[in-house]
């Protein structure tokens, strides 16, 4: 059947689905250990992103602001960067990386970030702290270009291209996760361990799940070190799990250091995870172990229990980050759900040309509507005017009121999922992610059946 590609035909956005670039850059940077990014712009550009992260993770992440004010609009804001870096370096003795993340205001003003960094290095760091190695990384993320997706990709590229250093081959595999959750990172690490593969994870966010410790030492932080990033130049290969969030950095490593890059597929669902394992095997020469075959079998078993009984023919709308949406759509097809409406939230046309969508089109026996440059109104409007009939919504919490007001079951997935507890702890990738997805979808549909008295007695025996 066909893939109908459309774009929002309005100029403005009603109920945004995507955030702006600096948010994506900030997410990358909090994954680095001993790193505090300095967002060069108004205070809100950092304060509200910090709040967003806290809403999602229930954790605090340190992100600084250059606190730009009116005078900078006239005279430029570089002085604020200099002051900000100096304060950060002086007050945080363990700090090693300070990414400077630009915003719409400072890109419009046209502050010379690279020149300023050079000045800071010469006039401040080398003079006052010659014994410390603090790297300042320029990250250009004007909020009026792309979205948080591009911001993520840009920041990852900036960090890798600034910090990667050629050295001895390390026999490791680079994994660039893209904007996934700590639960996903944990699952990826688990797979690599089962495969016996040493890796560098960009960024290792597993430690975002910070404990409350008796000695009061547990704080949320990223775990990818400066050394890890430097060493990516010496790895066997790079796998970028998300094409649009991290793909550019993988390609950079290939071009600059000859580290082969494999971009995607995002290992959501059985087949994508199979491809991921085969890619790892091929790149490292390691065999796929029995243990993962067992995990795969468990996932298929879980999906079989649910698919024809409950999932078949259910129409699903999916929105969120492009790789996630595509991966979830592929997963849906595997277990008989019908992803009839996919929405991408920015004006990057490459999403709709993604070969994975062509594959979906080939496999689906129904029409799939793909909307790019979409907002959440594109979803709400279609539901409101009856032009689509949706049985299940999959997406992040910003669309929660559509599910609530139109009484449609919704599985929260992606970022942010602030209206459900602890979802970031669970994976959507890997075989375990497939189990979590299938069962979460099922339980969401079950609760809906019970609440609406829609054949809820089926659940007595199935």
């Amino acid at each position, binding site marked *: 059947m066909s893939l109908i590609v459309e774009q929002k035909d*309005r*100029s*403005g*956005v*009603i*109920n*945004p689905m*995507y955030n*702006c670039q*600096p*948010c994506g850059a900030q997410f990358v940077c909090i994954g680095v250990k001993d790193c*505090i990014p*300095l967002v060069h*712009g*108004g*205070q*809100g*550009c950092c*304060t*509200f*992103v910090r*709040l*967003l992260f*806290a*809403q999602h*993770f*229930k*954790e*605090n992440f*340190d*992100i*600084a*602001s*250059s*606190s*730009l*004010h009116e005078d900078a*609009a006239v005279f430029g804001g570089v002085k604020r*960067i200099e*002051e*900000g870096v100096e*304060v950060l370096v002086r*007050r945080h003795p363990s700090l090693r990386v300070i990414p400077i993340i630009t*915003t*719409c*205001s400072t890109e*419009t003003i046209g502050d010379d970030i690279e020149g300023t960094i050079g000045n800071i290095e010469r006039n401040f760091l080398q003079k006052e702290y010659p014994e410390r190695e603090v790297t300042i990384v320029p990250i250009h993320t004007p*909020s*009026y270009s792309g*979205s948080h997706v591009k911001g993520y990709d840009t920041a990852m590229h900036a960090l890798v291209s600034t910090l990667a250093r050629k050295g001895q081959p390390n026999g490791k595999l680079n994994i660039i996760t893209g904007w996934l959750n700590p639960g996903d990172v944990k699952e990826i690490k688990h797979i690599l361990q089962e495969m016996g593969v040493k890796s560098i994870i960009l960024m290792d966010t597993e430690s975002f799940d*910070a404990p*409350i410790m*008796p*000695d*009061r030492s547990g*704080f*949320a932080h990223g775990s990818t070190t400066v050394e890890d990033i430097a060493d990516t130049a010496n790895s066997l290969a790079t796998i970028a799990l998300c094409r649009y969030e991290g793909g550019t950095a993988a390609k950079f490593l290939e071009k600059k250091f000859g580290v082969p890059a494999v971009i995607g597929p995002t290992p959501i669902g059985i087949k994508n995870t199979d491809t991921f394992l085969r890619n790892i095997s091929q790149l490292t020469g390691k065999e796929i172990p029995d243990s993962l075959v067992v995990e795969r079998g468990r996932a298929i078993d879980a999906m079989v229990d649910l698919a024809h009984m409950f999932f078949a023919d259910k129409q699903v709308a999916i929105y969120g980050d492009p790789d996630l949406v595509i991966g979830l759509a592929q997963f849906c097809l595997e277990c008989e759900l019908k992803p009839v409406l996919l929405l991408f939230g920015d004006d990057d046309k490459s999403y709709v040309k993604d070969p994975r969508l062509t594959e979906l089109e080939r496999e689906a026996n129904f029409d799939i509507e793909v909307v790019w440059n979409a907002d959440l109104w594109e979803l709400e409007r279609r539901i409101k005017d009856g032009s689509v009939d949706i049985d299940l919504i999959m997406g992040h*919490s*910003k669309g929660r*009121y559509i599910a609530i007001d139109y009484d449609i079951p919704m599985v929260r997935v992606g970022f942010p999922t602030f209206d459900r507890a602890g979802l970031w702890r669970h994976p959507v990738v890997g075989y375990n992610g497939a189990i979590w997805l299938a069962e979460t979808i099922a339980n969401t549909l079950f609760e809906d059946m019970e609440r609406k008295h829609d054949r809820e007695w089926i659940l007595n025996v199935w």
Partner: protein
Amino acid sequence: MPFVLFRCDEVIPEREKHCYVKSPGEDIVTYLPAANIATIPGTLTERGCAYCGAKLVIGGAIKDCIQMIHGPVGCAYNTWHTKRYLSDNNDFQLKHVCSTDMKESHIVFGGMDRLKKSIKEAFAAYPEIKRMIVYITCATALIGDDIDAIAREVEEELGDVDIFCVKCPGFAGVSQSKGHHEFNMEWMRDKVGECEPEIWSPYTVNIIGEYNIQGDGFIMENYMKRMGIQVIGHFTGNGSYDLLRGMHRAKLNVVICARSAGYIANELKRRYGIPRLDIDPWGFDYIAEGLRKIGTFFGIEDRAEKLIAEETAKWRPKLDWYKERLAGKKICIWTGGPRLWHWVKAFEDELGMRVVAMSCKFGHPDDFEKAISRGREGTIYIDDGNELEFFEVIEKVKPDIIYTGPRVGDLVKKLHIPYLDGHGEHNGPYMGFEGFVHMARDMYNAIYSKLWQLAKEDIRRKDNGR
């Protein structure tokens, strides 16, 4: 020991004038912390921007208008789903936000066409809504887009709509406070006096600086109703755009958040001779005093007394139960500004607690005058406090509980200190008699939670690490 320089601030001694410990014999003419001045970059400030002060705090609570943010999409995205202000309009204000989603070409060639299209699209999407607030942001202010001109054009073209423009980019001022100010002054200048509300009571008030967090404003509206008083403008919780254009018809302005909305009360006094009555709506003693004053103003003291008696009878025993258990507990208040002085005496006098440290994000000198006048000696008072300073304060005062924002709360929980949401009011509402009981209940539940005891225990040690 007047101003203090925290260890973490030794490298930025400018912070000293923002941090004060009140000593015996000192008052507000001996020392007053510097406030409402620019943040030092890189200090991990808790402050937001002026745009958010206008949109997130004030405009966004109005229940029957479209929020149109003229800028890149993040300004809309990030000020959406971050507040708990309710309305009796199916929470329209919580559910929807619009953006012109400015792209690079609009930054180069101007975004006014895009704004015009976006405004018309939004009115088309919500045919039942005829009012809109347009906010300028950093990028669109820098390129000089004239949002007023576009708003007037659209009003002309559509005929039945009204648009209010807020020109307060994120880089304006030093904090969200600038946005409060701009919104107040612009609303007063552009909108007040445009509508004539229907008057049904000889007793009319505006409730100013109350944002209906978790229904606080519903409690206040209910009290007014029971006293036979008509609320014309509720600025801005559960506020109606057109009623707020009729604020000039009230006989009394009841001001709650003097920081974010005192300006419009001052202007209403200056221009229309409507008195400004500031009240503290948290705490039995204070809310009773406020209601009495409103009653006295209209010569209906008996109604106020009846209400106070009913409410007190209903809620006093519950409060007393909590008071017994909260007495002597040490608390920090680290919020925006006014809650420092609104809450400190209510906690101390009515619950027997000790407020040991107060920090505000965007307070002005008058907020510190109030906080220090009401606060005790030995208490720490901080302007624009930041994370490293908070750690030192905690070490010094060892609080039992902290009222602060969720993110700082997520930080202090790791130090085994319970936090309550001082902005969103944990399990509110918090205003009025019942609200203060909720507050006491939340503090009791948090302080006495078994989890904090468990958190301290180290199971590797025979003595559990105690």
